[in-house]
């Protein structure tokens, strides 16, 4: 060591060093990124350390979805690193995806030097301007001495309250400049952002009182339970057990209550189960926990659960009364509120008798008997539902994580894959991003190297981020891509059949690649199956391979995803598979509904 360095205090360092130190101090072990001119100093620091592992993706969108998969499967903050200009604009899709699904994400982006900002410099874009509406908050750091503080605050904001994505834009001259590293503060200085965690106890008491009086109750839970952490899921299970109420969940909340649980109704919403949607429609008390009354859930709003009184537990006050008026709002963290609810229910002097909900349960069981996920199986072709049933059966009993792309396969996966634990299911719910599944699977596999990680994909979606195969090979991540290949953009085709006279405009995937050869070209394993009798063996082969696999599962081309609440209809107007004749499908949506999705 030279004299000058020994004289330099420990907390003096370059901006690039500050970035790495701040990431380490926030517990980061993996970052997903792609280098470029404006982040070279940070990449130089990455090269000179071993604590943080960098996963090189092949497109910045992949970095974002991988970080999302990492975050959702661990409960930690996902971190992505991108360069200026196109690097930042490519990050926009995963940022918006994370915003809509409340995923904690920190995106560090490079920026042109401060002296060049505003000059239309090479690879310059207004990153904070572009990402302002698709982040929870963002910063352009113009002073190296503020860099550490901003990164600490970025992590706090990303993971507290309703989680979400944040962007820290760091100009190149700030990465080179020397400044002071400030440690993570113990007391937060920012007074304007302080999310409320504990629910108002009087509101919770009122909620418990209403629940105790219910004759036709239902729990409607969502991604907020998963986001709140494993303790929230445990408390939810306890509360369901105590109350004996039936429970349904949104797409984002699957796994918080186990699919094998006695009170489970399956997912609700547009492609949810008949029993879940009927229970929502006919209930007298709805207990919404960590869900947001999304339009795919409610169906026609003015016919949504017309006779119920509604309790809504959410950490985000803007979710309350946004789409649906609720009677008892409780603002707070799901885990904290559930804890109070369990305690207060236990303390009830007179617990409701079992007979109070007996009739309701007999209705529920009658709806269950309709078996709304049933389908007509075939000996000649693989039905997509059958493929997922087998995949579910053969991947059970292991540490399995499922990611999906977006479309029919996603809905079938939600219907047929059974989740017993939270954080095992990653899908793009709010934004509906095709191309999410493969990079998300990569992120999950990075966090859980020994787990079985399967991306349930469609033949169209998988081609949106297929380049990440190269990333999986490079980092030896044995993700399994299970493609339900029907040679169509299946959900688009289904809507065209429903809405547009079966004119299949641009929804047929012509010039389909040979997925087996494609897998081999990347250095992965390709499998092909079009025979239901061979399916089990092939799935077992896929699971056994310790390398990335692309499984080209050829399924019935024209299968539709049922049950379905058609556009413009209410929960009790579902189209069930056994009623879905060609004529019923053709007339399911009237002229008014047709103008809207």
């Amino acid at each position, binding site marked *: 060591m030279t004299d000058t360095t020994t004289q330099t205090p420990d907390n003096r360092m370059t901006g690039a060093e500050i970035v790495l130190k701040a990431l380490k101090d926030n517990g980061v072990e993996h970052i997903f990124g792609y280098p470029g001119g404006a982040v070279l100093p940070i990449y130089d620091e990455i090269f000179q350390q071993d604590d943080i592992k960098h996963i090189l993706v092949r497109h910045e969108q992949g970095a974002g979805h991988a970080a999302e998969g990492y975050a959702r499967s661990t409960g930690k903050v996902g971190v992505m690193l991108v360069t200026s200009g196109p690097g930042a604009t490519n990050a926009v899709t995963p940022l918006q995806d994370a915003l809509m699904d409340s995923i904690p994400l920190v995106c560090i982006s490079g920026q042109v030097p401060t002296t060049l900002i505003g000059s239309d410099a090479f690879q310059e874009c207004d990153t*904070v*301007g572009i990402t*302002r*509406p698709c982040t*929870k*908050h963002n910063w*352009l750091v113009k002073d190296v001495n503020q860099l550490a503080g901003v990164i600490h605050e970025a992590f706090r*904001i990303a993971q507290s309250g309703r989680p979400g994505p944040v962007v820290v834009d760091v100009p190149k001259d700030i990465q080179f400049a020397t400044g002071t590293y400030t440690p993570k503060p113990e007391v937060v200085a*920012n*007074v*304007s*952002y302080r999310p409320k965690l504990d629910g108002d106890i009087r509101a919770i008491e009122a909620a418990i009182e209403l629940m105790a009086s219910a004759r036709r109750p239902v729990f409607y839970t969502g991604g907020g339970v998963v986001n709140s952490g494993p303790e929230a899921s445990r408390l939810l299970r306890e509360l369901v057990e105590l109350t004996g109420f039936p429970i349904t969940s949104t797409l984002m909340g699957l796994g918080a209550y186990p699919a094998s649980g006695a009170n489970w109704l399956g997912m609700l919403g*547009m492609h949810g189960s008949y029993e879940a949607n009927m229970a929502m429609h006919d209930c007298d008390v709805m207990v919404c926990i960590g869900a947001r009354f999304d*339009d*795919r859930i*409610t*169906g*026609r*709003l*003015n*016919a949504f659960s017309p006779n119920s009184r509604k309790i809504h537990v959410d950490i*985000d*006050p*803007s979710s*309350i*009364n*946004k*789409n649906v*008026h609720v009677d008892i709002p409780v603002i707070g963290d799901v885990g904290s509120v559930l804890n109070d609810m369990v305690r207060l229910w236990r303390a009830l002097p007179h617990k409701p008798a079992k007979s109070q909900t007996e009739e309701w349960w007999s209705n529920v069981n009658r709806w269950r008997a309709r078996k709304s996920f049933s389908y007509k199986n075939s000996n000649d072709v693989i039905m997509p539902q059958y493929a997922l049933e087998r995949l579910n059966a053969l991947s059970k009993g292991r540490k399995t994580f499922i990611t999906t792309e977006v479309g029919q396969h996603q809905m079938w996966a939600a219907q047929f894959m059974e989740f017993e634990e939270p954080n095992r299911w990653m899908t793009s719910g709010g934004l509906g991003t095709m191309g999410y599944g493969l990079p998300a699977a990569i992120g999950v596999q990075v966090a859980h190297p020994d787990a079985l990680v399967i991306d349930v994909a469609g033949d169209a979606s998988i081609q949106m981020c297929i380049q990440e195969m190269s990333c999986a090979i490079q980092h030896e991540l044995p993700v399994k891509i299970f493609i339900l290949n029907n040679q169509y953009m299946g959900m688009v085709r289904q809507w065209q059949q429903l809405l547009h006279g079966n004119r299949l405009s641009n929804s047929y995937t012509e010039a389909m690649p040979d997925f087996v050869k494609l897998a081999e070209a990347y250095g992965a394993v390709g499998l092909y199956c079009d025979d239901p009798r061979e399916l089990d063996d092939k799935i077992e082969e896929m699971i056994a391979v310790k390398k990335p696999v692309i499984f080209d599962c050829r399924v019935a081309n024209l299968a539709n995803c049922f049950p379905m*609440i*058609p*556009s*413009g*209809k*209410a929960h*009790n*107007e*579902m*189209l*069930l598979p056994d009623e879905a004749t060609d004529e*019923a499908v053709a007339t*399911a949506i*009237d002229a*008014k*509904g047709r*103008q*809207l*999705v």
Partner: protein
Amino acid sequence: MNAHQQPTGSAYFITPETAKAESHTLSVLVSNEPGVLARVIGLFSGRGYNIESLTVSETEHEAHLSRITIVTRGTPTVLEQIKAQLERIVPVHRVVDLTVRARDLGQERPIEREVALIKVVGTGDNRAETLRLADAFQAKVVDATIEHFILEITGKSSKIDQFVAVMKPLGLVEVCRTGIAAMNRGPQGM
């Protein structure tokens, strides 16, 4: 199931709005940092809310706080949503719906004032008439030559609208208005 029932809405819920829209004045206390105004107005444009008037200035220099006054229009549900969405913005400290607060305090409206600068060019009788009207409206002359006056007027928006209207035939050439500054009556602070 009940597919014979004719639907009136859609999966995208373009249900007709039956509630009546009202105009409210919001006070938003924000950290005075770069981009904060863009966050606030971006929220309004992004979510399709209206801005009828917008005023912003630093009010507490040491604490780096600015106060934004927004007049917006919407149904009670939308107004509640606007307030909740504003509160979600990280550098927003407080949002007060002054119109709701005034009602809670048993008052009709908050105090709302606007300043305008008005340039009038003319000769002869018009000049005398301009000054007579300015006097009636309690507007001050802040600049003048033998060809023009610049008048400064403070008051409710409706008063300024009226003043602008009467100045039009007298040679009005330019108007600049600040937008509304507002505050609730009574001793309590925001």
